[in-house]
């Protein structure tokens, strides 16, 4: 082809206007990181017990399970969908494991059961959203009631206990010194999701779909397949969280993880993921997890009841979105 003919060739464009470092300096992640550091410092001043390694280790349980779900939720929200049924998937998955225990299942079977139920629930959501073209927010409000409803039908006001002793490792085991198995799993999954979102074609497709689903289709991206995969992934991660939480509590009640969907969404949004889709990062969600976990833990040490912490979380959620908007508006006003 004669495309390279000199009369047509224009200027070569530079790759980047800003270096990655410059971008980081004005990023949400840096702001969030400063908040995390501030919370850490404040906590260590506020309570002498805070800096104790075992206390810190305990504190990680406040966010590890939720964060596992939040990683998958982040991808789903970036793609422009949402799954409000995650806590209910967790409950159903836990109920299924409890049921399997009654049938005499051993730990490997329990793990498989938990993961399989998570996947199945994710597939159900994904099918309704991508197969029938229904809005995910309504579908998952429905399945949120349905999945937990099934747990209530199975369990009523009873509880499953009697999990095998080696099953306890997932939620209570330590890999080395104060480093719990859950924390290691959290770190590992953070890395896996960061690579998946930021370093693979699949992750790129997630961003493309979130910014312009029609354009994605017209660019040859299999939009329904990607979305279905994301619902599967979210279901699977809810199953993983179910294994950890069930193992940690050693019992399953139908009200397990009640209200977690909101905390998970808060974590994702706090992490800088746009609730409208199209932007956000996994490192942001990781830092948000730490912030939320440490705030909860710090308040706990100060004997502030959990419900009061929720006020703080709610304020945080609104503030982190409102403040940049107010700042931008003030800046714009000054310019004009």
């Amino acid at each position, binding site marked *: 082809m004669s495309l390279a003919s000199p009369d047509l060739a224009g200027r070569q464009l530079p790759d980047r206007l800003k270096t990655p470092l410059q971008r980081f300096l004005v990023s949400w992640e840096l702001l969030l990181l400063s908040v995390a550091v501030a919370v850490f410092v404040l906590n260590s001043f506020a309570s002498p017990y805070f800096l104790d390694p075992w206390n810190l280790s305990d504190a990680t349980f406040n966010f590890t399970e939720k964060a596992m779900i939040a990683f998958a939720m982040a991808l789903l929200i970036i793609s422009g969908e949402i799954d409000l049924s995650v806590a209910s998937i967790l409950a159903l998955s836990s109920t299924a494991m409890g049921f399997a225990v009654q049938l005499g299942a051993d730990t490997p079977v329990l793990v498989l059961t938990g993961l399989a139920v998570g996947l199945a629930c994710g597939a159900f959501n994904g099918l309704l959203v991508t197969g029938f073209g229904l809005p995910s927010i309504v579908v998952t409000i429905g399945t949120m009631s349905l999945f937990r*409803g099934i747990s209530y039908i199975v369990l009523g006001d009873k509880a499953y206990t009697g999990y095998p002793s080696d099953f306890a490792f997932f939620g209570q085991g330590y890999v080395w010194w104060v480093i719990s198995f859950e924390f290691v799993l959290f770190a590992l999954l953070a890395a896996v999701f960061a690579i998946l979102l930021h370093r693979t074609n699949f992750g790129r497709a997630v961003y493309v779909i979130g910014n312009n689903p029609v354009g994605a289709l017209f660019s040859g991206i299999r939009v329904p397949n990607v979305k279905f995969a994301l619902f599967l992934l979210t279901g699977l991660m809810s199953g993983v969280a179910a294994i950890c939480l069930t193992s940690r509590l050693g019992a399953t009640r139908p009200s397990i993880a009640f209200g977690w969907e909101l905390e998970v969404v808060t974590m994702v949004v706090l992490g800088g993921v746009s609730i409208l889709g199209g932007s956000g990062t996994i490192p942001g969600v990781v830092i948000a997890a730490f912030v939320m976990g440490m705030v909860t833990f710090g308040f706990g040490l100060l004997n502030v009841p959990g419900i009061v912490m929720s006020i703080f979380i709610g304020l945080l959620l609104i503030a982190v979105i409102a403040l940049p908007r107010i700042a931008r508006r003030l800046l714009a006003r000054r310019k004009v």
Partner: protein
Amino acid sequence: MIRLLFKSREAILGAAILVLVAAIASRFPAFVAPSNLANVFNDTAPLIILALGQMVVILTRCIDLSVAANLALTGMAVAMLNTVMPGLPIPFILLVALCLGALMGLVNGLLVWKLDIPPIVVTLGTMTIYRGIIFVISGGEWINAHEMSDTFKAFPRAALFGLPVLSWIAIAVAAGFAVLVGRTPLGRTFFAVGGNPHAAVYTGIDVGRAQCAAYVLSGALAGLTGYLWVARYAVAYVDIAAGFELEVVAACVIGGISIAGGIGSVGGALLGALFLGIVKNALPVIHISPFWQLAISGSAIIIAVAFNATSSRTKGRVILKKAEHAL
């Protein structure tokens, strides 16, 4: 033709409810005794009131997840007011409840309007905040029946022409909304804002202000329901009506109110709430564990949204003359 479809959507839901009631009645005739039906309606009244408020919010492309927390906080506030000043007249209590609820709605509305924060985020946030404030003001204590004055508790239960006041309030709110939505400029504005916000701006409608107005309405109704709820059950504590916001949204979805905004009707919201109310009340009658209720309402939401989606799916363009005749 599409208009007919919308009308028929409510008709289908109405028919489904009739079939449901008939099926129950065939085995348990006591269920359709007028007194029992009145009971069911009275039981569903709070859901009806909140669903109507939620409807206008959803019409404007927003959602209000804070209604249950608003209800609980207002309920707690008026209950505390009552314990401190038992002599306060009921109209004053009602006014306080309405204003307090409207104020919380206004907070939601202003955040959506002035700061342009996505509605789901705003109300997720205020939902936890309002719930937390109940704990702060009550110290986590319950306010029980014996601490409330008799007039305070009696109001929603007082019978008027054979129906409790609570039922009459739901009927009045429904009638008021029918007028508001169908016959007032504000009501048409809600549809315009949700149907085509871009066009609304060009016709001189302030989209944010309309959304804010919807939140204030929803909040005021949640506040009103807060008092009625606390007085009816004669107890106030942090967790009353926990998770009720989802039942309210469910009633709207089942009633055919489009979550994408701009489509919905008072009749739809009413029927959606009644459907859930009948299911809830029928379960013990037909000897099914009440634990089934959650799963049933979940399934109802999914079926309703699937049904609405398939009936309003846009068809491709018809260009061929032949195809036009065939259709």
